[in-house]
């Protein structure tokens, strides 16, 4: 059996390791188009902060890991997939046949169509190559503008602040991380940033970049402008699916997959940022561009490739973010469901917040600020669809008792 995996990020690497265990005799080829050994993008902020070196971002620490497990790592960009012939083409023109194929090509950052954006001092923060370019320009006291205060923007924000730059964040939406945090949490995060010396301008967009001077001149739609040695773009991502044009593999926002991560074509699977699979909370097919879902889907797809039928219960939205030391998190249907109810604890002064969303006596979503103890219990309660019984009323009185609720519901007292 010849398994080919396109993409060597977390989804591809977890899939390769799982395949090796589940199908010891198979041939496994892992393709990637970046020059470095397989690495985790998530570790980039810590590289920028100087806490780790590049090797510290590698997904497998042992340089011989892949050879030892007889996984063939190959560098190359896949340019097309022929699903009839079960063959793919690489950028040099070589072709490669497969019995089972996993597409784990991840996503890439958007570059909004803003005049002047092609200046080399305008950078995305997505790859190790990006990180090196940013490290060159983001010296202590450099003026840096960050476009976008979404999840990735906020992660980068912390790393930039740690480098001691003078930072201004420009966000189109009315609050920070609008797609991960509710209005209370988003506004608390904004206040926190301002109190910690980061200027956050919400409700404004960048309209142009003038690179003719020594510094960039970043103009905004409120008529003002900001000088900058560096402009970082964090304006969302989109799946790497262009090379599938004409392949017949069905796509929407990402590659459409069923509950076994199988695409519309036999023997071809997709996982990670590129896949649009079942969302745990809504049952609809959604792209979840997050690490834990990439890892879970990589494992599940590999089991199915090794012909051990395994259903994926659906990706649960879950995020944890540290912003200048303030930890926030959200899970599942954090903005609530129709006919549901909620309870919350809110202490703006002390930056403490926990909002729980229920559907009848089940927890379906949560948002937290300043919460670091036992946060995983929120995933456990949501994803097990645990009936809370008497615990619902107890959580309504004190939402912080999530861990007691989990233990109380699952252990014989």
């Amino acid at each position, binding site marked *: 059996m010849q398994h080919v995996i396109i993409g060597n990020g977390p989804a591809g690497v977890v899939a390769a390791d799982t395949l090796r265990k589940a199908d010891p005799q198979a041939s496994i080829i892992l393709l990637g188009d970046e020059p470095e050994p397989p690495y985790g993008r*998530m570790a980039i902020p810590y590289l920028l902060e100087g806490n780790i070196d590049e090797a510290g971002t590698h997904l497998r620490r042992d340089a011989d890991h892949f050879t030892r497990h007889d996984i063939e790592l190959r560098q190359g960009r896949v340019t097309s997939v022929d699903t009839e012939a079960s063959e793919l083409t690489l950028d040099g023109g070589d072709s490669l046949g497969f019995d089972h194929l996993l597409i784990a090509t991840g996503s890439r950052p958007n570059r909004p169509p803003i005049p002047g954006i092609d200046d080399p001092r305008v950078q995305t923060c997505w790859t190790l190559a990006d990180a090196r370019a940013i490290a060159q320009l983001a010296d202590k006291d450099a003026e840096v503008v960050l476009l976008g205060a979404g999840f990735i923007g906020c992660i980068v924000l912390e790393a930039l602040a740690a480098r001691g730059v003078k930072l201004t964040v420009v966000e189109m939406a009315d609050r920070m991380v609008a797609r991960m945090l509710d209005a209370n949490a988003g506004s608390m995060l904004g206040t926190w940033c301002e109190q910690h010396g980061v200027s956050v301008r919400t409700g404004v967009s960048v309209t142009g970049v003038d690179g003719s001077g020594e510094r960039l001149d970043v103009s905004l739609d409120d008529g003002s402008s900001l000088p900058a040695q560096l402009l970082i773009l964090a304006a969302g991502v989109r799946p790497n699916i262009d090379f599938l044009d004409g392949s017949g593999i069905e796509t929407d926002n990402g590659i459409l997959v069923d509950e076994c991560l199988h695409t519309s074509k036999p023997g071809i699977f997709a996982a990670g940022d590129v896949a649009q699979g079942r969302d745990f909370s809504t049952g609809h097919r959604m792209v979840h561009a997050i690490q834990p879902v990439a890892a*879970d889907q990589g*494992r599940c797809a590999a089991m199915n490739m090794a012909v051990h039928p395994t259903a994926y219960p659906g990706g649960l939205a879950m995020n944890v973010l540290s912003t200048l030391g303030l930890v926030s998190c959200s899970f599942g249907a954090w903005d609530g469901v129709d006919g549901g109810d909620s309870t919350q604890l809110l202490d703006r002064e002390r930056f403490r917040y926990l909002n729980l969303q229920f559907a009848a006596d089940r927890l379906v979503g949560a948002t937290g600020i300043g919460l670091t103890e036992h946060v995983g219990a929120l995933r456990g309660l949501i994803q097990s669809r645990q009936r809370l019984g008497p615990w619902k009323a107890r959580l309504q009185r004190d939402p912080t008792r999530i861990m007691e609720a989990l233990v109380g519901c699952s252990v*014989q007292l």
Partner: protein
Amino acid sequence: MQRSLVLDPKKCTGCMQCEMACSLENEGYVVPARSRIRVFAFHDEGRYAPFTCTQCSEAWCLHACPVEAITIDASTGAKVVHDTVCVGCKVCTIACPFGTINYASNSGKVIKCDLCGGEPACAHACPTGAITYQDADQTGLDRMRRWAGESLSSATAQ
């Protein structure tokens, strides 16, 4: 056969010796808030329940880690965090459905039970036998593990 921590809430009196022993063993001083095993009080039921990592075979924490900072100790089966590798991203803390891997802001790393390398200090300190370390299938954590296996992700490739 590998041994497991056996937790029996019925024998727990809430004395907190386990939390003190755990933090002393792992942090070098007695600070129950940093203990990897925690005792939860259930006043309505008049019970206490010690609880910690089940060393589950799904190992959600390990798979979610972007830098391979969590590995399996071959002799004990424990999922162990390597401080020198952990970058403090906290993704494991949301991925673990048991809530038993926590971020410690003092160190900027995550902490979890590692079975003390095979000599768990909590079991040694427990005066009532509520926490024991045994060759047993019927551990108090078994139910929890089953609960996870049945109700959570079926992506349990190991």
